């Protein structure tokens, strides 16, 4: 769905994560980039260089906020101080939508700073959806929730991950940031078909996609964001764009970060799959019109 109510009716194209090693290049060379995704927490500060850099980026580029610590799935109530800071940043960036993860990572005010997988239960889905609604109402911006990569499954789960994701977004009436690399990583770690996952989520709620690289170990795959995107992930991305429509897509590269141009070139590879999806959609429309 190119533009929908979950991504602020935007058509943002291919974006990159804004990362410190690239600051100088971006500020000096002003490369043409559709949009940048910022990690909200890096800019939820009260002053100093982070905000100076952000303001200079905002003068030139479209920016979307992506969070890593809202923990929609934590049983704790949303932290008011956290929300206030986030809202201040939302006003500064005018982000058309905001994303964070379908996970938990804190309890009793103690933070693990990890994206821990949810127990896929109806009770957890209800609580998570309730929190997403509360947070969206406070922030007054559309929210997309991102599926995480995971290394553990729980006995208590009552459904598959994609059923849980679907349940949450329907109850919360929010969007999905579909991370196809995370789907691929989890499919290998848990032994499911990643295409079942993509086919199982409500396509009309997908407001953004992520692609990234991962690392294979002997017994599991780790979501490391330190490699180019692997072929199976691109193939899954192609399938997802055909099913959900061409939407804002972002390449995540967070460790062992190469030059800006290398990261940008890797992200732009998505264009080939986007063109393929557009062509397929056009052909389908023609077929419908034919007598």
């Amino acid at each position, binding site marked *: 769905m190119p533009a929908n109510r979950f991504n602020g009716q935007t058509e943002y194209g291919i974006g990159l994560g804004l990362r410190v090693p690239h600051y100088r290049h971006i500020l000096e060379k002003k490369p043409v980039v559709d949009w940048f995704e910022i990690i909200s927490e890096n800019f939820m500060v009260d002053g100093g260089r982070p905000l100076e850099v952000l303001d200079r980026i905002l003068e030139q580029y479209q920016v979307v906020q992506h969070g890593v610590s809202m923990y929609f799935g934590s049983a704790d109530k949303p932290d008011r101080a956290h929300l206030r800071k986030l809202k201040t940043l939302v006003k500064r960036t005018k982000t058309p939508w905001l994303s964070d993860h379908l996970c938990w990572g804190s309890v009793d005010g103690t933070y693990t700073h*990890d994206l821990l997988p949810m*127990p896929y239960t109806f009770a957890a889905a209800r609580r998570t959806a309730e929190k997403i609604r509360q947070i969206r109402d406070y922030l007054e911006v559309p929210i997309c929730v991102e599926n995480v990569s995971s290394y553990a499954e729980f006995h208590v789960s009552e459904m598959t991950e994609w059923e849980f994701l679907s349940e949450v977004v329907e109850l919360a009436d929010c969007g999905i940031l579909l991370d196809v690399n995370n789907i691929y990583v989890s499919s290998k770690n848990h032994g499911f078909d990643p295409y079942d996952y993509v086919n199982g989520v409500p396509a009309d709620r997908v407001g953004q996609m992520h692609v990234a690289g991962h690392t294979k170990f002997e017994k599991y795959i780790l979501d490391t964001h330190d490699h180019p995107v692997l072929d199976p992930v691109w193939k899954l991305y192609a399938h997802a764009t055909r099913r959900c429509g061409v939407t804002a897509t972002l390449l995540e590269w967070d460790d062992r970060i190469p030059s800006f141009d290398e990261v940008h070139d890797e992200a732009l590879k998505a264009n080939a799959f986007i063109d393929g999806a557009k062509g397929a959609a056009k052909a389908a429309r023609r077929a419908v019109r034919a007598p």
Partner: protein
Amino acid sequence: MSAVPPVGLRPPPRQAAARMNSTADLRRFQRLMTHAVVRPLAAGDRLQARWIDGRPMAQVAAGFIKPNDRLTAFERLEIYNRMYWFRLIGCFHEDNPALRALLGERRFGRLARAYLAKYPSRSFTLRNLCSRLEQFIGEEPRWTAPRTALALAVARFEWAQTVAFDGEARPALTTDDLADTAPARLRVGLQPYLSLLTLEYPVDDYVLAVKKRSALRSEASNAVDPAGPAARRRKAVAPPRRGRTFLAVHRHTNRLYYKRLGRAELLILQALRAGRPVGRAVASGGRRVRPDQVQDWFATWMKLGWLCRRQ
């Protein structure tokens, strides 16, 4: 170390519920897994073999985590346990380079694990991870002995740098703000990002030397050191000798700086921060302070943007 309960985290349930019917069940589940994730690593960076109550960890893990055809429940939990500690220790290293140089890798590593075991993060941002390090060193000096006093000074200084980097800035005071009110009634604030430190060691020089040394080492990182490890150890920066030092850690045009202060300067600034009127704050600097000195100091502080309106 493993016996120290993490501050702020409530005790875990004995086991996860077989069914999850409520938010309370979800909270109990999350408490159990959090305790497992933040549990200090055992030798070889492995998940501890025993749970808090002495039961086999494999049994506890199997109670709530499914195995798969390649990994046991224990091994799956271990992935999260290791990722947690590697992430936080990495952050601790980044935030405390001078403390690391002072203590050496091994002792610094032990300090990091002991601190994080007792004080896991209570903030949504890792920026605040070391906010209680000074307190911890004071509470448990064995991790830094026999250099605890110096380690305390270095930890305070490095935390002040974090505050200076991205702490709040308020609109700086202008001369017009000062002109309209008599010093006896005028109260001014100090920028929240400015830290005023009274230290028992001149750690500013030490930190500069450590930074210079690591910059040199980094430039030469591709070269083989013909002198070998013994010579490299000799080149380590010598710890400073004890000497009371008054410092302001601040930023200017968004770059970090530290500035030595005289005792009278520090006392006046502290009095201003405490909310005393300018006239009384100046008096707290002592009788030997000359009016022309005070004028110079205020001019410098204004120029650096340290003074702001009180809130």
